[in-house]
């Protein structure tokens, strides 16, 4: 028994050592400012563990890339940006506690968290301390606006467009461009995101004279959709709307095609990931469409440069979260430049006034509800390539 314990201890010690060594090596991810006083602290409060760890990690990678690029180019207002990175474990209360800690570190703004729920956890602290929060991907309408009072939350911003916009966009496209009359909604029911989109899609689609044959739901981490798909196949719809994230959507589409469902399938920005093609395969993705902020296949030089830099640094394709994380930092930098000083309140004022900011996810202006007004695009998968179908200005 004693020997067992000794071996256990030895192995555990080895693990700790290897982790410590790993951290030392990976320390480059969190560069420190030249001098303590000179740096502008930027809080990065994202989900690095727990359910949506991969979204948080990608957004973090995008944000860190932006900060490095800016620092290399001389920083902002003559100062370097110093990212302070924290893991909120995909839990709202943890996000709150971290925001409080970050505020204590005198951050000028917080990037993240990713999901609307975690942002909501962070919100009271940011509001109380008057420090702006830039949410890369929180799409629920009530993130920036208080449901009860209808007032805009002063310190909460986002760079993604919101659920009503995307849902409406796809419904218009389905009715007008695809002439769909009978649709089935199969949405991610474990997120307000999927449910929100489904709701707005239904509203517009029925207003256009279409009928929703059925609404099915899946939940996060589902990998088997064939039961519901078999059911959907029997309904024989001429359009299927699948608002959700690529982790679930990719196998879903693959399984749909395997079952012989040929109807066009539509989706949303959560689809945007290189994994869509690698998981679902080129053939399965033909005749699918999704709304998005940008496309990593976009030939726009700014996007090409971003994709190149991201690949060079992380050796992986940037997905929408990475792009949105990158844009969150960039828009903050724009705000700092406009404000002329690294002061959270001044930054907030400047952010509220941003117009025609050129992000890699499109040109955006912040409206009075702190939502970005930006073009949406509808992309089509053609043999594994994302092809721009239309661009729609709101």
């Amino acid at each position: 028994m004693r020997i067992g314990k000794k071996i256990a201890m030895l192995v555990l010690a080895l693990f700790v050592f290897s982790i410590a060594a790993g951290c030392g090596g990976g320390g480059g991810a969190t560069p420190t400012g030249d001098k303590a006083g000179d740096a502008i602290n930027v809080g990065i409060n994202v989900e690095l563990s727990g359910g949506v760890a991969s979204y948080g990690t990608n957004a973090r990678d995008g944000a860190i890339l932006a900060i490095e690029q800016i620092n290399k180019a001389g920083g902002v207002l003559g100062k370097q940006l110093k990212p302070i990175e924290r893991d909120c474990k995909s839990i709202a209360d943890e996000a709150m506690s971290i925001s409080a800690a970050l505020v204590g570190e005198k951050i000028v703004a917080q990037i993240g968290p990713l999901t609307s729920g975690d942002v909501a956890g962070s919100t009271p602290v940011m509001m109380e301390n008057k420090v702006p929060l830039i949410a890369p991907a929180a799409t629920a309408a009530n993130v920036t606006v208080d449901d009860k009072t209808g007032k805009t939350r002063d310190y909460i911003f986002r760079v993604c467009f919101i659920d009503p916009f995307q849902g409406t966009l796809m419904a218009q496209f389905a009715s007008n461009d695809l002439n769909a009359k009978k649709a089935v909604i199969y949405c991610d029911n474990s997120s307000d995101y999927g449910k929100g989109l489904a709701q707005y899609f239904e509203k517009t689609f029925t207003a256009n004279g279409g009928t929703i044959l059925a609404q099915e739901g899946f939940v996060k981490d589902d990998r088997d959709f064939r039961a519901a798909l078999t059911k959907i196949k029997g309904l024989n719809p001429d359009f299927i709307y699948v608002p959700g994230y690529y982790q679930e959507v990719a196998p879903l589409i693959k399984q749909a095609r395997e079952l012989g469902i040929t109807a066009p399938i539509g989706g949303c920005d959560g689809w945007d990931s290189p994994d869509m093609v690698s998981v679902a395969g080129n053939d399965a993705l033909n005749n699918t469409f999704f709304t998005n902020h940008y496309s990593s296949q976009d030939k726009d030089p700014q996007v090409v440069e971003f994709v190149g830099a991201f690949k060079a640094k992380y050796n992986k394709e940037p997905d929408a979260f990475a792009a949105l994380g990158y844009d969150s930092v960039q828009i903050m930098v724009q705000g700092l430049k406009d404000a002329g000083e690294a002061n959270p309140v001044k930054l907030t004022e400047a952010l509220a006034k941003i117009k025609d900011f050129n992000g890699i996810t499109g040109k955006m202006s912040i409206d009075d509800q702190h939502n970005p007004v930006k073009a949406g695009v509808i992309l089509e998968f053609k043999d594994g390539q994302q092809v721009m179908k239309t661009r729609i200005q709101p």
Partner: protein
Amino acid sequence: MLEFAQQIVNGLSLGAIYALIALGYTMVYGIIKLINFAHGDIMMVGALVGYFSLTLLGTNIFVAMLAAMIACAVFGVLIEKIAYRPLRNSTRIAALITAIGVSLFLEYFTIFLFGPAQKVFPETAFPIKAYAVGGLSILNKDVFVFVSAVVLMLILQYIIKWTKTGKAMRAVSLDREAAVLMGISVDKTISITFAICSALAAAAGVMLGVYYNTVNPLMGIIPGLKAFVAAVLGGIGIIPGAMVGGFVMGLLETMVSGYGNSLYRDAVAFGVLIFILLIKPSGIFGEDTGEKV
């Protein structure tokens, strides 16, 4: 009717995977009375090994599965030696907490090493073909998963039933002290059990990889929990019980999604579990044993 048959086909391959994982839960429980919460994560490690074997070494799927099974067998034995053996004479709840610790460790150490993003099984590893059989769509991967799971279960049955090692495993789980008196080394037998269970989990992991063609560090949690429910359903500690439980779970899930509301799928699965526990606490195949006074 056709739809129903299709749902059965869907449920069977899923059930086969659950059954493989459930076997591990059941055998470990049978021999050391531990709910090994890390079992689903061992499956994940197996899937990862399979993935790297396919992508880095470019092996074919069968070699990848074998590699994953061997790697995880070693790995499972190590986990048992390091984390569980020192606690063998402690309370079962202490061992349970350790298992939770091991589970978290595997998940997050994997994230630390490889990042949280899912990894995509290369398409070439297993080109999908669909066969239409009387209106049913049957995929070669369904056949692959089902057949390999059944083959592995048959091999396991053979080991348990006919080999000396298998008999020793049964003896230890039936009566550890009497087994010692036969000259059976309990430590060794437990190690072998972990090796076999982990190898089965690894195979299930690779199958899941083929089935969904992605792997990620947290992929073990949900199937792990489901398989665990399957093991209890069949009667934990009882090998045929785990197999049946796995298929029941797979079919049940498919049926609830197909004919009810897929959102209640998990609730129904757990509800059935509670129902079974209440009417027959030791599971479908379990024998109720009263306490001796």
